[in-house]
């Protein structure tokens, strides 16, 4: 449940964002009324669903569905009890330490594999193995190794997220146009300069795409770890309120987890826009011959 909600929140937000990213501007200059309609349609849709939820929820057993209004008041209670804010920060910490490690280790490993065929051949079997393995099954092993504290939650988050970062970085490095590698040879760039000035920048768009996927997985890892390993943070709240059938509180926890995901996506986009404004720009040119 938690993982579905978490990934949904990330992707649904991501999709809307991707569209505006890729097209730059609204594609067709459609006429005004229909454009306005398109703009308010999502809002109308959400309002209608909330209304239906309220209507149906107030008629059936609150354990099954609860209602928007009681979810909001549960939200308020959890804040005033001093429960939600600490849980939110625990979740943020688990997520960003695990995800941060995955970013650093993933990019470093991906670059190594991208630049060295030997490293690629050595690491390839493991990448394939872990990519294909449902890593959630490793959670008990993580507990044996790291216990049930912060380290274990970070480990689960990391292990879920790191593979997408490695693979995307690797592909990005390998996709460097051979002409740019030639440029590096002609101007005698050192090995490190080839990475820092050419192959790593070339991989940046791929890396961000990988980070988007990895963030979704890290979010799942973080919540699973909080639910199954430590029973703490937002995952812990959701588990506990689920066990005591307090559905409104459970849902308030779930929506807060969505907020954690949305913040992550926004942060990634901010970093991309601020530091890598050239991502998405093209320099393709055609050759003319006789």
């Amino acid at each position, binding site marked *: 449940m938690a993982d579905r909600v978490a990934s949904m929140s990330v992707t649904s937000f991501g999709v809307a964002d991707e569209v505006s990213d890729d097209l730059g501007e609204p594609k067709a200059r459609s006429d005004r009324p229909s454009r306005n309609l398109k703009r308010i349609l999502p809002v109308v849709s959400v309002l209608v669903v909330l209304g239906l939820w309220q209507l149906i929820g107030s008629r059936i057993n609150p354990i099954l569905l609860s209602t928007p209004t009681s979810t909001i008041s549960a939200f308020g209670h959890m804040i005033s009890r001093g429960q939600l804010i600490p849980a939110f920060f625990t979740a943020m910490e688990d997520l960003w330490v695990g995800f941060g490690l995955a970013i650093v280790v993933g990019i470093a490993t991906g670059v190594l594999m991208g630049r060295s065929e030997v490293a690629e051949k050595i690491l390839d079997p493991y990448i394939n193995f872990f990519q294909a393995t449902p890593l959630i099954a490793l959670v008990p092993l993580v507990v044996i190794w790291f216990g049930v504290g912060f380290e274990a939650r970070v480990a689960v988050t990391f292990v879920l997220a790191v593979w997408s970062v490695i693979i995307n970085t690797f592909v990005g490095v390998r996709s460097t*146009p051979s*002409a*740019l590698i*030639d*440029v590096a*040879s*002609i*101007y*005698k*760039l050192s090995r490190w*300069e080839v990475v820092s*000035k*050419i192959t790593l*920048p*070339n991989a*940046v768009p791929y890396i961000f795409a990988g980070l988007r996927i990895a963030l979704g997985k890290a979010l799942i890892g973080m919540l699973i770890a909080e639910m199954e390993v430590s029973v703490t943070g937002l995952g812990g709240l959701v588990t506990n309120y689920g066990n005591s059938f307090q559905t409104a509180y459970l849902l308030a926890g779930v929506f807060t987890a969505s907020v954690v995901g949305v913040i992550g996506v926004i942060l990634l986009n901010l970093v991309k826009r601020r530091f*890598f404004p*050239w991502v998405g*720009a*093209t*320099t393709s*040119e*055609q*050759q*003319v*011959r*006789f």
Partner: protein
Amino acid sequence: MEAPVIEVSHVGKRFWQGKSGAFIALKDVSFNVGKGEFISIIGASGCGKTTLLRMFGGLTTYDAGSIKIRGSVVRGVPDRIGFVFQAAALLPWRSVWDNIALGLTAVKGVLSESEKRSRVDAQIELTGLKGFEQSLPHQLSGGMQQRVGLARALVAEPSVLLMDEPLGALDAFTRMRLQEELAAIVARTEATTVFVTHDVDEAVFLSDRIIVMERAPGRVNQIVTVPFDKPRVRREFIGDPKVAHIRDEVLALVTEELLSRASTTETAFRT
């Protein structure tokens, strides 16, 4: 006479092309390039022009004969060469200024930071890119991108300048303007230049000698001398019947090959 800067003797190259076996890209290619000389290589697509140029730049190996630059056999990228690539090959994530400065990587230790800066600024001035120092490559026109590629190749003041169809992607008007700029720049820096092109007029306008190549296997057909003083003024140059004569000669050599090829394929079709 001074020793040649580039000596090509009996160079051969074959590529292994998977199932179809070995493909002879170059066979027994020999010629010299004198100091400060401007040489054009012209010939049909696939005759090995890029391959040859890449060999001079140490980017491709050769498997017969020898290539010497300034007296020493080419192994790896020679010092003090500039290379302008077929497509500009700029770093999309670096500004114009940084892209040009990349050309100074090899001489980093030698130049002070302020020398480096004034060199890049001078190149920007020379190639008419002033005001675009901080632009990214995709914000420039194709012609400007090529000029950045040219500036990057020139900034370290190479004694050998290798150019692979640097103007190939441009419209006729921009092309002519850049030809003139190029002639002026090369004259000033006195670089020994090898210039690959598909354009006969361009080759005649710029070169001291034109190497006409043939295809399959790639080899030198003929070397045509263009015995006219520089700087050349285009309007007078074009009107000169002696120039027209040389132009026709080169054109005949290029098209002769194309035509003979066409007729062989035709007969092949019939049988």
